[in-house]
């Protein structure tokens, strides 16, 4: 793997973001709106619900975690779509970049995009709602890392679809997160789901991450098993996603999609 090439692709997106104030604003705008909205809802539930009575900010904390996942995944897809929209796709794929280098570069750029959006929103939660996500303690790092891995896994899966099927796959790119959200048990415990849906939920890392976050905030206990299960599942899905990306690239070379996307 060549770090200079990885840096080159990172630089392409860094220039793009830093050149345009509206782009930076756009990155910050949605997370801030989302978290402010959930902040007020969270306040309302904390006041009127017995379940949330002793844990002000559960919904808001979960909203922040979910938004991080959403931004990472969308960020990865956006970087990939950006190449298609700017008709730069061919230039990228005729350069000597390995697929692994493209993935690593987009993964790190997606993290920066997500943080640009989320950090200001997280900073707002304390003065506005008196809530700090740092209440999750040291586990917060593992929860974020787990969400980051799952976010980029989804991003890689969708980008594999874009590679294989071309820009017609774009709509799926936007809807993936909404499809997965109900099974992620972001705002409610997994017991709420019907039995069959619970089986689907337990096959995804999200349920363990959000159950863990609630457990820490409500019971002040850390269940390492949840974090462990989330990581194992993440590794399985990430491996599948990367394999699928390679497969899609080879299929795109066979079917001619790379040429059609590029022009």
């Amino acid at each position, binding site marked *: 793997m*060549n770090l*200079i*090439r990885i*840096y*080159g*692709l990172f*630089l*392409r997106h860094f*220039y*793009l973001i830093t*050149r*345009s104030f509206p782009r930076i604003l756009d990155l910050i705008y949605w997370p801030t709106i989302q978290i402010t909205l959930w902040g007020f809802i969270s306040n309302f539930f904390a006041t009127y619900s017995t379940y949330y009575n002793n844990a002000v900010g559960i919904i808001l904390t979960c909203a922040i975690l979910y938004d991080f996942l959403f931004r990472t995944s969308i960020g990865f897809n956006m970087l990939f779509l950006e190449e298609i929209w*700017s*008709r*730069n*796709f*061919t*230039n*990228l*794929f*005729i*350069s*000597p*970049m*390995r697929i692994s280098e493209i993935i690593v570069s987009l993964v790190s750029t997606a993290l920066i995009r997500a943080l640009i959006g989320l950090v200001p929103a997280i900073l707002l939660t304390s003065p506005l709602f008196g809530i700090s996500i740092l209440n999750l303690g040291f586990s917060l790092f593992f929860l974020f890392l787990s969400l980051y891995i799952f976010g980029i896994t989804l991003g890689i899966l969708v980008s594999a679809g874009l590679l294989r099927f071309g820009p017609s796959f774009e709509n799926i790119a936007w809807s993936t997160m909404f499809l997965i959200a109900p099974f992620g048990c972001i705002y409610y415990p997994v017991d709420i789901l019907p039995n069959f849906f619970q089986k689907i939920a337990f096959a995804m890392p999200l349920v363990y991450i959000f159950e863990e976050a609630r457990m820490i905030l409500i019971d002040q206990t850390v269940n390492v098993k949840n974090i462990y299960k989330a990581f194992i599942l993440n590794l399985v899905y990430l491996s599948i996603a990367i394999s699928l990306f390679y497969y899609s690239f*080879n299929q795109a*070379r*066979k*079917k*001619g999609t*790379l*040429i059609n996307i*590029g*022009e």
Partner: protein
Amino acid sequence: MKYLVEVKNLKKNYSSKEAVKNISFNIEENEVLGLLGPNGCGKTTTIGMLLGLLKPSAGELKIDNMKFEKNRIEILSKINFISPYIELPKKLTVKQNLIVYGKLYNIKDLKNRIEFLTEKLRLKELLNRITGELSSGQKNRASLAKALINKPKVLFLDEPTASLDPEIGDFVRSFLENYKKENKISILLASHNMNEVSRLCKSVLMMKNGVIIDSGTPSSLIDKHGRKNLEEVFLKLSRGENEFN
């Protein structure tokens, strides 16, 4: 004689359609080879395979004596491509684009390379301009600078002067002639501009329906088909007047 590009029995099928049917040709070092043919004849598919964007269904493809499929990344670092149908990122400045591509091609002395190319291609004044805001002639020169950033051994040109005014078109052709002379690179030129092909190419391949139907130097083709110029030869062959055998 050293061949930089060797194509042997190359085929490309899309499900039931045969886009390229068993073509073979070579490009010598320091040669410009023209690839001509009507739209849909298989030129883009052929170039796509030579750039690694398409996987051949059969046949062998070597560049700089290396098999393409086994040495894809190494070969890609030695070739480059320019086409009016693909663009550099529009929101970046010319300089930023050249830096990005210089890094993607892992160019060691990037600053000097950019300076050299911008000087030769009259891009100095445009370096800090947004690429998307340039005229087609300026964009074309910026794309050419990107295509030469890695000092390619083989350059693939797909209608490099399409949509350019005659002055800029002539500048680009002269630049390519001089650059080839100084750097001994091989060029595959796909173009519908027959004057350009006559001027730049040592030899020409005529494609139709996925096969090479004729080849030779521009003057030998003109003589062989008893026409006044290459354009008339092109029209004769693409309309299917079956006199070329």
